[in-house]
């Protein structure tokens, strides 16, 4: 990245196939523009999304991570999002203790009908990540010998 260009954060989004992925599709169908920083990785369910993936994203240089799925009660697999939610409750505590920047880890429920919410949320977290700047701390961890 050259010095002149403004900083563009890299954002990895792990989303479920049935709600948030479709919500992003709807944002597209409705031509709702949002920053091009997010890279969506489609998984069947938030229940499938392991915390290691979040760490892996930071290791790969992500400046922010988004995990998103169906609203409670709407899970295509009945309860995958409930399992995910419980894991996130614990995982967030661990991030806090490690001093990992929780402003860079986002969780959301975005349904297939919420194209607008997807657009707004992705825009918001991109702007947050821009404001925070590159995640220098984790890059240092990854570069240390």
């Amino acid at each position, binding site marked *: 990245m050259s010095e002149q260009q403004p900083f563009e954060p890299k954002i990895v989004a792990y989303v479920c196939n049935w709600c948030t992925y479709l919500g992003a599709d709807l944002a597209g169908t409705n031509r709702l523009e949002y920053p091009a920083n997010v890279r969506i990785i489609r998984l069947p369910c938030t229940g499938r999304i392991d915390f290691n993936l979040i760490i892996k994203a930071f290791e790969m240089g992500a400046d922010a991570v988004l995990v998103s799925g169906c609203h409670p009660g709407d899970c295509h697999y009945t309860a995958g999002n*409930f399992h995910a939610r419980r894991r996130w409750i614990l*995982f967030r*505590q661990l991030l806090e*203790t490690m001093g990992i920047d929780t402003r860079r880890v986002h969780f959301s429920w975005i349904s297939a009908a919420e194209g607008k919410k997807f657009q707004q949320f992705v825009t918001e977290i991109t702007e947050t990540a821009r404001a925070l700047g590159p995640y220098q701390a984790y890059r240092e961890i990854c570069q240390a010998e």
Partner: protein
Amino acid sequence: MQNELRQTCRRLLEEGTVQVVIGYGDGTDGQTFPTFVTRRDDVERLVWNERCYTNLATYLTRPEILALGKAAICVKACDERALVVLEKESQIDRSQLVVIGLACSTDGVKQPKCEACENRTPRWANVTIGDAAGETAKTTADRYAALQAFMQKTPDERMAYWKTELARCVKCYACRQVCPLCYCRQCIADKNRPVVISTSATLKGSFAWQITRAFHLGGRCIGCDECTRVCPAGIDLRLLNLSLARAAEENFNFRAGVDVEAEPIVGAYSERDREEFIR
């Protein structure tokens, strides 16, 4: 008391109730070490003193110990919680195990973890040796005092702390080896298709490893602090364990291994779990 312990173990072996007793033996340098007694005359090697701090539950899942036959195990009240977790996770069959409870007196084992000790009498034992000093009610604040103090630091300071601390980690995996609840046949850290945790002893690998280790103990860690005790680099791993233990207690009213009846929180959920952090 030591005599009572030896007598009990002798009887168990004589009567054929068990084939092996997992207990403490005296070491050369004033330490104790895990001892596996299979012959009744060897019970004299068993000791019970203030240096018996290791958590022997970790041996219960080892294939080489399982091969010795039905076991009796010596546990303190704190160690015993590991048995509860192991039983919930189908790793031990409680009916096939004789638990010899060792009650701690206040001038018994002295370890940092003893500061937070609440209950000195094993509750789940078949036989209990010795008289305990009684219970000391502790509040949540007492239990997580060390964590609370640490959390006074800013996030950046915490990050800096772990960078310094984990830089010393040599990935010897002593923390994994000693943990009574790390019983996987193949650890995720040793997985290579894909590599989930970088195998080299760099800071990146150490972070990933310690996050993973701590998280895998979330809602399971019983706080025996063996990981911290054995860490050759002297990293205070306890803080990570405490943070998840506190999250489990605060959010799910759950303390691993304390209530024999309580179902594990791992693999379970409630529709009312909090979600104010989810947008």
